């Protein structure tokens, strides 16, 4: 008599092999160089990690869907001139024939736990390949306990992985005055721990903004913008980092360890 448990393990294994092959295929056909990041943006310093489900979507459909959700969509997508966000334009320019659909569901002020619930609904409705989740700043401002925050983000990241969705976490915003804010820094470190433990991409927005602010100050930029640190140039740098990360992730070499879906998925 066939063992149903055994069968339930065969399917994920086949799926994992398929994903490896698809990633490998994508990598093989990859003549795609990652989009450059402007000199003034500095080095993003983001660890490259594969995005296997997006690679599969590219291979099969020449189309990827990105769900942008969380604190500030402007900050992660870049300024949306000419009808579409900068991130979408860079990706479509970089990967020939790729159709990028960005579903923007940013809702500023929302905490990670509430966004986690909305992410589940949006994934059910839109079946994105990547969830680009800017998370942490609101929770830090709202003084959410670090363990609660970590549990909420971990829970949602695991759920996304179980549902074959790639995750990119975009971290907290930078301000000089926040460097000594113990709670803010604790939430920042907590997000870093989650990304490491769950092996998902985290874009260190804090670090990137810190570099950018320093670069602008050295370059003799407008003082009031340096004081505020958040500029159109800064947002566009974030979009460039993310576009580069996604491109590298899609065309990365096959992962040593492919995310294995849960039994029955």
């Amino acid at each position, binding site marked *: 008599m066939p063992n149903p448990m055994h069968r339930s393990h065969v399917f994920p294994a086949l799926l994992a092999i398929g994903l490896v092959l698809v990633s490998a295929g994508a990598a093989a056909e990859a003549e795609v160089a990652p989009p450059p990041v402007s000199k003034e943006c500095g080095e993003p310093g983001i660890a490259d990690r594969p995005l296997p489900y997006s690679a599969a979507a590219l291979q099969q459909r020449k189309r990827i869907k990105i769900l942008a959700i969380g604190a500030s969509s402007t900050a992660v997508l870049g300024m949306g001139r000419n009808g579409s966000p900068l991130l979408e334009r860079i990706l479509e320019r970089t990967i020939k024939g790729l159709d990028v659909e960005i579903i923007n569901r940013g809702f*500023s002020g929302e*905490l990670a736990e509430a966004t986690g619930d909305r992410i589940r609904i949006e*994934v059910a409705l839109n079946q994105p390949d990547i969830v680009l989740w800017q998370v942490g700043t609101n929770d830090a401002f709202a003084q959410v306990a670090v363990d609660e925050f970590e549990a909420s983000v971990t829970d949602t990241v695991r759920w996304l992985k179980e549902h074959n969705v790639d995750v990119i976490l975009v971290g907290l915003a930078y301000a000089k005055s926040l460097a000594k804010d113990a709670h803010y820094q604790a939430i920042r470190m907590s997000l870093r721990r989650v990304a490491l433990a769950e092996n998902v991409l985290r874009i260190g927005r804090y670090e990137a903004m810190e570099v950018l602010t320093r670069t602008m100050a050295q370059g003799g930029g407008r003082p009031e913008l340096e004081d505020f640190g958040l500029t159109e140039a800064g947002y566009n740098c974030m979009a460039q980092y993310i576009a580069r990360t996604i491109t590298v992730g899609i065309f990365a070499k096959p992962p040593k360890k492919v995310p294995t879906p849960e039994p029955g998925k």
Partner: protein
Amino acid sequence: MSAGAEVRMPREANAVDFWRGFALVSIFVNHVPGIYYERFTHRNLSFSDSAELFVFLAGWSLGLLVYGNGMRKGGAAPLTFRLGGRSLQIYMAHIVISGLALGLLAGAAYLTDTPPILEWHNAAAFFQDPAPTQIGIVLLTHQLGYFDILPLYVVLMLIAPAFVIIDRFAPPLLLPLSLGLYFSALVVPFTAPTWPVEGQWFFNPFTWQAIFVMGYVLSHDQGLGHFVRRNIARIRLIALPIVVLAAIVVWFELFPDPTTFPEPKLLFLHGKSFLTPVRLLQFLALAAVFSAVYPTIARYLPWVTEPLSMLGRNSLNVFCVASLLSLSGQIIRFLYSGSLAVDTIVVIVGIGLLCLTAWLSEWRQRLGSHA
């Protein structure tokens, strides 16, 4: 004082004003995310929250106004003029509080040297690309986070004359038409877009109109309203298990995986933006059950019903102040850490200021009647 001028006294405490006041206080608390006291608002045991209650009672109040003043039988022009005027009043209130909210955020960012505050509440687009974003604010296509219910209210009041005219000439058609639009928006699905930041309204006006129309239809003792009043005891028997079941599901987080639902998924999901059927049904059940408790509260706890009714009588002014106080509460919690003491002060001072706003509004009305 002009001779013969009557002193306009506020109406007595009643269930509608009381529940409106209750919704306003809940909205104030819920809009300070992370505050200790948000765990005591009814959304922790309910699919629906105070937003549904607020919009339902807005429809109910429209019904009382239209039927109470004989507007329903008047001409279409005066009706449109009056309700359009109310819509304009809400619109102006929204524009004013959006401007003040942006000022609060900018002030907090500047004084504390914390630029990320400028990104709170969807404000980043305004500060980085003000020209199109200002157009978006004026057109209601760019809404600040937690400042998104008044745009819905503006739209509902703008289309209210159409509801009233349909109700006048073909009353049985009003609810089916409203539900038709509701289910179409869920099945297709469609909503109102945002601009310049691409996205969608947090409160889908095509679905939220249904709860507004239901409030309107149920407010008067004719048709469905008459049926509900005659059968309210039986309805409560059906409603009570729904309320209890929802409380268990929410408390123990027993929501099914939303990806497992069949298409069209919005018919089965639990989502606020689209006011999905599960939320709407649970809200109606909640309203049926809790409509029974007002007389008891009024009898034994008049010190609760009186101030809450005062808040409800002045709902627009109180809502505007509550929105700004919620934002101020968030900034205060960030600056002084969200300890229980800070949270308690925020809630007590906030509710006190809401009561003061309502009292001043009525005081001004009384002064007006003497002028």
